[in-house]
């Protein structure tokens, strides 16, 4: 019996989920000490700016928080990128937000960091 290797179907680029990875550094000494609280702060400012529906559609995921370097890495839905960036304007928990980087893959953003 001949064993043949079956080709695994890879998802086409057009069908892939569209995400954007955003990293930034902040200036304030945070009273927030966990990923969950960082998520809640970002979610709250997005609800305040754009509303609940867009906040849920944006699908914020906090991937990495470095409290010593004061940097945050977040993944969001590409379609709501502008809304998320707009909401950062009203966020007071992080103080001055700088070194903003937006990339489509996590490899690119880790190279940037």
């Amino acid at each position, binding site marked *: 019996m001949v064993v043949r290797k079956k080709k695994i179907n890879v998802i086409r680029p057009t069908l892939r989920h569209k995400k954007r990875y955003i990293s930034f550094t902040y*200036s*304030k000494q945070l009273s927030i000490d966990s990923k969950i609280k960082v998520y809640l702060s970002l979610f709250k400012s997005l609800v305040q*700016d754009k509303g609940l529906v867009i906040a849920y559609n944006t699908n914020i995921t906090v991937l990495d928080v470095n409290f010593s370097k004061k940097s945050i890495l977040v993944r969001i839905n590409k379609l709501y990128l*502008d*809304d998320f*960036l*707009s909401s*950062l*304007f*009203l966020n*007071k928990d992080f*103080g*001055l*937000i*700088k*070194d*903003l980087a937006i990339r489509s893959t996590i490899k690119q953003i880790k190279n940037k960091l």
Partner: protein
Amino acid sequence: MQKYFDFVSEKLFEENNIDFLEDLFLSLHINTVYITRFIKTKNNLNKEFKIPKSKNIIFKKAYLFNNISLSKNNKVTSLFLGQTLQNNNSVVNSKNKILFDVISESLSFDESSVKLSYKNHIKILFNFNNWRNKKQSKAIKQSLFIIPLLKNNLVDMLFCSMAEKPDELIDFNILKNFLKNFDLSENLISRFLNEKILK
């Protein structure tokens, strides 16, 4: 990548190191910084006004006048304070001026002021920190009325931080996206944030 300009208070440079500020402006993509001195009396004009030098950032002087009568034909960029009905009207009735901060306790900038601004080539400069501090509710409500009016009547708008502390500065890519809330297109926003609009 587009580079931006910002008007910043003199106090920011009194309390912070120039190297730290230079790195900060570069990380926020700000290329040109207008250091602004508030002029209440003629004595303020006569005081020495030194600006730092840098290879990467262009620093320029600017004056913010409390009253139109204090200014002469300066080569230095001049801003004229609004914030009251009387001030707004006096600036809008003169020619070729930059009116700073039209937001006040109650709405003091309406359709007639907008039409006069277009006729007299007045530029309106908004302090975007008003949208983030205690004045937030009044500032955003009045801006939601004034900015579309200015856009429809083809009046130029500028946006600055007038920051006294580093925390009051912002990345202009974030500001660009927030300005879309005021029904401004991307092209218009890029034009308003480009330094050529001051010339």
